[in-house]
């Protein structure tokens, strides 16, 4: 029965993504106005607090607020540094980790509403016959540090400096002000307020303008590139900090065919070329979102697996691979596709 409803991991993940999109965007309407207070307030995905009916909110807004209003202030007034200052932050991180422990970075690949929105747009892009833009191995390293920079500057640095009085108060939650998920999730509730940029302060205007331009770029880029915002998302780097502490893992064993194959690399929406070349711990890269596509598109039995406490949850297999590629190519082109706009080189490719 379950096999009929979810014939592939991809179908199962897509179903989870759609359900989580509703929970993270409209969950408050389903679970009650105060649901956000009851679930976690520290979700490891971009579930936005600006969305008035969200079911939960992301760990990054809590972190920025606590750095701004508690730790920053307390550092200035050293005498006030006390256990009751740090406990709320520790509780937030602890709550986050209690969730993260079980799913690890699957929160990025299975739960994050911004990730789901980008994937949906990418699917539309396939239907529109748009090209696929990828980062090749020699260039991908140039973009990877951006997510760490976003985390250090926008989530940790500026809120702390604002709390210490060394930066403007308007920089108290700067990441939220540039986060495209704030715009995506509020627009999904038909609320256009967040699209309107602040005019009351220069900092607010600059941050909001940046957010809007970034959001505009992402929703168009997602038609022709996979997960464009995820590459620089500070939650990806935040989650990477805790990645090794969760028993949920992507595991790859060495196999003689791997050097020539590279299908898993093509299937990876984050252009993690290491998944094709490396094995062991190095294969579970910091950019991995545990979407499981590499395991789905590996044509050899149990070379790539997703494991929880060493128990195999999903593993690659030849028969599964044959079934999967009949539905969709590794880079996401549907096999039974209806192409709304014909690609220029479609005739040449047959």
């Amino acid at each position: 029965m379950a096999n009929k409803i979810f014939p592939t991991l991809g179908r199962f993940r897509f179903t989870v993504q759609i359900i989580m999109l509703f929970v993270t965007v409209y969950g408050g309407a389903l679970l009650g106005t105060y649901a956000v207070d009851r679930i976690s307030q520290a979700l490891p995905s971009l579930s936005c607090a600006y969305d008035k009916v969200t079911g939960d909110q992301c760990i990054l807004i809590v972190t920025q607020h606590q750095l701004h209003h508690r730790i920053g202030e307390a550092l200035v007034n050293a005498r006030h540094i006390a256990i009751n200052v740090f406990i709320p932050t520790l509780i937030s991180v602890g709550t986050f980790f209690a969730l993260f422990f079980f799913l690890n970075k699957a929160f990025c690949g299975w739960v994050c509403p911004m990730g789901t929105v980008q994937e949906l747009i990418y699917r539309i892009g396939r239907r529109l016959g748009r090209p696929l833009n990828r980062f090749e191995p020699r260039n991908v390293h140039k973009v990877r540090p951006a997510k760490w920079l976003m985390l250090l500057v926008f989530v940790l640095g500026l809120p702390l400096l604002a709390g210490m009085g060394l930066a403007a108060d308007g920089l108290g939650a700067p990441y939220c002000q540039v986060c495209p998920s704030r715009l995506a999730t509020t627009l999904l509730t038909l609320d256009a307020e967040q699209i309107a940029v602040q005019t009351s302060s220069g900092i607010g205007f600059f941050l909001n303008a940046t957010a809007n331009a970034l959001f505009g770029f992402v929703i168009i880029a997602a038609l022709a590139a996979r997960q464009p915002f995820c590459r620089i998302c500070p939650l990806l780097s935040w989650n990477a900090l805790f990645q090794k502490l969760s028993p949920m893992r992507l595991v790859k064993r060495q196999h003689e065919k791997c050097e020539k194959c590279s299908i898993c690399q093509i299937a990876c929406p984050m252009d993690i070329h290491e998944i094709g070349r490396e094995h062991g711990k190095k294969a579970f890269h910091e950019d991995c979102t545990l979407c499981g596509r590499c395991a789905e598109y590996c044509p050899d039995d149990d070379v790539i697996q997703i494991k929880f406490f060493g128990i195999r949850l999903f593993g690659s297999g030849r028969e599964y691979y044959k079934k999967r590629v009949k539905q969709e190519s590794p880079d996401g082109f549907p096999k039974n596709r209806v192409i709304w706009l014909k690609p220029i080189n479609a005739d040449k490719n047959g």
Partner: protein
Amino acid sequence: MNNRVLRVAMVALPLLLLSPEIAANAGPQPEHATHGDGHAGTGAKEKKHSMRDAVLWTVYPRLKIMMGGENRAQREVTLLPKNVVPNSIDAYSSNIKSPDAHRQLPYDLVTAKLGKSATGGFYWLSAREDQADKVTVASTVYYMSERGSKNPTAMFMQQKNALEIIPQPFPREHSRYRANEDWKFLVRFNSQLLAKQKVNMVTQNGSKIELLSDAQGIVTVQIPDDFKAIEVQKNTGGHNHGRRSSEFVLATEYVHAGKTYLTGFNNSYGPDAFDQRSLAAGLGFMFLGMIGAVPLLRNRKVAKNTAETGKKEI
């Protein structure tokens, strides 16, 4: 332009709405909207607020909340009853199973202090004056942004006084009452719904509205957009990020067994969501970003080794 129409149009036609006349005004930051600063700011802003408040803008009972202390960790909440001489001031926590679920606050005949609790959440604050022929109640809700808050609905619905005005719901954290929004309140007496009960709304900005509850005892209030005549507050720092804020009170009176009951519910509210915001500029920047991504959509000439698949590598 009607905001609802605008919102729907925004989603349907994001690329077409670049007309300048839809530039709307500003909006307060939803963050910290109910982080315990719902009523007043700190420092200079507090003085300014107090000066405005010194002018009697309503005769209805209300509980004014004032914040003290320089930093958040030591901030103290002071309650100042207005138009009521209370016999007692009570605090009810949304954490209804905690030992602090109901506390009578120490009252020095001028102010009462709400001490910092171990857990955060919503607090229902109520000042009651009992006289032989009249009971006057001022009530409000205060949010402490600490962890461990519980769903406040059960606490809100507990009977705390005879005549009550109860928010249905109260804005949750990161939200607040704002101009042009509709909010519902339940009016009841001894836990019985009061249909067709007259409720008066008065705002600090000078609006006066008369409302009537429906058959379910619900009164729907559209928060008035009456900030235009009020001077824009400058950002003086503190915790409310320079947001403009004013106060409203809802009041109702009911006579039962020869005794008059007068109850007020007051809280703060902010300007319209689009106040001090520009939708046209926002759309413009979004459009710029879209244009920036357009080259990615073109089927340009691809490298020889990837020509068969139509893929490009950056």
